[in-house]
């Protein structure tokens, strides 16, 4: 009879030793040393991105991280870390439970992060309890169609007299919510196609014809407009970046001006005040960093910095716009 799993012999001790060795190795790597608030920052800071690489939030964090490093009082690394999952909720849940020692901060998608709570879902994080650090940017949205589409204006969309297909990544995204707001305001019936992996993906889907139009940040759409693949239909900016694209105000709905995806920096709840002060000051200084300004200009991103208190106030204001339409914000495909 051959050796089986159950017999002792070379199998048991060797394997057990190996697993224990590996486990001990892994555990020692995970146990962090405590840090005194006065020396902050003394350890590297993880700047968590709730989405996968290549998208707008990823870009923002990677642009800001070097500037933040330069602005901090002590030399540490700021490490962009992608933690995608559950439409961004996974990363925020992680921050909710992380140690309030300033080693983990996250960029948050607003008002997307507030949507689940708005629609009555039980979520694992509480935006009120989180520590607000700053707002880094606000990217106004634009509605766009494929360049070769026969739709030339919002009026054309209405004339189609059918459900309009609009893609997004998932129902918890700000783009989805913006779509709802746009649809309801303009009197359009929408079929929201969720499930795309990222903004680039659903813009390409629109070019392909999976959808009629899409709602995306101006900066992300810019490269598709420049390449000749997409055309702007209406923009939610104050002033249109692209010639020939009307602002939402000029179409009679100035209340939607400023519909944007905003990027906020959050820290775990109960983060000590002096750590918040250091971080806020660093972000403020970083926002004037000439290298950051040059890089964001090249990436067509705008710096729209707000300090901690102003950030929280602005976030609440933005949420209110979406709350008006919250009836339609629920899961689309029940």
């Amino acid at each position: 009879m051959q050796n089986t799993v159950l017999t002792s012999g070379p199998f048991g001790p060797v394997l057990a030793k190996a697993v224990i060795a590996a486990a001990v190795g892994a555990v020692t790597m995970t146990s962090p040393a405590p840090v005194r608030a006065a020396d902050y920052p003394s350890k590297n800071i993880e700047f968590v991105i709730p989405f996968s690489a290549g998208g707008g939030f990823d870009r923002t964090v990677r642009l800001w991280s070097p500037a933040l490093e330069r602005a901090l009082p002590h030399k540490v690394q700021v490490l962009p870390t992608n933690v995608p999952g559950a439409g961004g909720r996974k990363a925020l849940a992680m921050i909710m439970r992380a140690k309030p020692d300033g080693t983990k901060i996250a960029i948050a998608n607003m008002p997307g992060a507030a949507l689940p709570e708005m629609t009555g879902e039980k979520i694992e994080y509480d935006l009120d309890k989180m520590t607000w650090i700053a707002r880094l940017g606000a990217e106004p949205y634009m509605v766009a169609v494929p360049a070769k589409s026969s739709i030339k204006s919002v009026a054309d969309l209405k004339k189609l007299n059918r459900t309009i297909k609009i893609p997004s990544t998932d129902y918890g995204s700000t783009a989805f919510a913006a779509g709802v707001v746009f649809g309801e305001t303009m009197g359009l019936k929408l079929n929201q196609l969720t499930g795309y992996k990222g903004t680039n993906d659903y813009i390409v889907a629109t070019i392909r014809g999976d959808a009629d139009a899409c709602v995306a940040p101006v900066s992300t759409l810019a490269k598709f407009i420049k390449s000749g693949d997409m055309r702007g239909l209406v923009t939610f900016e104050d002033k249109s970046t692209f010639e020939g694209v009307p602002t939402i105000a000029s179409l009679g709905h100035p209340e939607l001006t400023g519909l944007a995806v905003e990027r906020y920096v959050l820290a775990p709840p109960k983060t000590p005040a002096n750590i918040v002060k250091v971080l806020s000051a660093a972000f403020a200084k970083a926002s004037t960093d000439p290298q950051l300004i040059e890089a964001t200009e090249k990436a067509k991103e705008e710096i729209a910095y707000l300090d901690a208190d102003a950030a929280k106030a602005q976030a609440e204001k933005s949420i209110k716009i979406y709350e008006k339409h919250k009836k339609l914000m629920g899961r689309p495909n029940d």
Partner: protein
Amino acid sequence: MPNTNMLESTLAALHVLFTPTGSMFLMLGVVVGLLFGCMPGLGGTTAIALLMPLTYGMESNEAMALFGGIMGAVSAGGSISAILINTPGTAPNAATCFDGYPLAKQGKAGIAIGAASVASTIGGIIGVVVLVAVIPLLKSIVLLFGPPEFFMMAVMGLTAIAVSTGGQFLRGLIAAAFGLILAFVGYDSVSGGIRFTLGTDYLWDGISLVPALTGLFAISEMIALSVSGGTISSEAKSTRIVSVFEGVRAVFVHWKTLLQGSVIGTIIGAIPGLGGTVAAFLSYTAAQQISKHPETFGKGNIEGVIGPEAANNAKDGGSLIPTLAFGIPGSAEMAVFLGVLVLHGLEPGPMLLIEHQGVMFSLILALTASCIIATLITLVVARYLVLITLVDVHILVPAVIATSLVGVYALKETFGDVILAAVFGIVGYLMIRFKFPRVTLVIALILGGIAERTLHQSLNMASGDWTIFFTRGISLSLVIITLGCLTIPAIQSLRRRRKLEEEPAE
């Protein structure tokens, strides 16, 4: 894109590669790629993620040389451990184990390594050649594939399961069903709900593929090895350099398998979400189908090494197609690599190739060069690597398990990944013991999620109309191919049986 422009860019990129720093970074990338590739648990994505911050401030062309070097060498490194210790260094090398390891046990590891290396090189080159050839058509190609096409590709991949069960049809299906259940764990972005996460948020993103595969193939094999004891190979026949060249020659003898593997790899690589693992398995199945001796697969048929290895390198060229066309990553490595592009101020999107053609050509060239250099290095050290098969398992097993678990942890610094790998290690060992094929579980795990998501997306797009799969040209072709894949083996076996019946009894 005008041809002179491309030629200029290629020459400029070549110029960079031949500078001392350029070639230094390329060599560094190749070595890192080989090392990370051959250590189970680590892989291309980890290598790129770890080296990314170090390249901040580097010149873009040199960064491309580094990362191109890594990407081209990883699966070559992975084939080494797949062949020698039945433990794929990276998931796409899993198919190489099926025939590579039996060859090693027969003392023919040198032949296997020789064949794997050269197949990798040629597959990789073909992938890049196709990429460059279709550059004017990049966008059109990406636009051809939407959710209905993705769904049909996933279904086609899932039917490969039915054909790959290797004689254990029922168990293969059970394993596949289990794989599907695992695929549905996590957040579903179509309906916005979280499923089967056992109350933890570790599983929110579903079952993490790399830890699961590391456990399923690497750790389970180590458990199996330690149970059987001894050494992997009983003879040192293949440590002679001649057998390595025999492997090289085999690649050219079986050029049809090589070509088929490369084409499959390129196409699958070009479809976002499928990745090298699917490419390798599909190529293995396809190689078996065109082989004159399909019954020898799994027992040490060199074609079973050539096909998958060509595919998992060809996919690198293919995965650049959607990446360069629209900034949509064609594979897991590409997804991480997008972060590198952003870091260097190169925004992924349709303008990338237009605005930064030179840098992109540096990448393509580095990728090609890396395929070649990695193989040369492997061939040179092959005879020493083969000695691993003579090492006693009591030393080998703990080393491999420890490296795998540490490597899995290095991915995301989450202990949950380590636990997942360990759990799958045990599951995998039980599957080996009770003869359940692990291949089918893996294919179902990878494709299940894609299939479900794209099915829902397609139906949403069509407002519930099922005929969408039949009214789109490519989707319809895929339906036909899938039906063909399902029925052809049945027809073939019928024909074979009939031929046997017609022959006079001995």
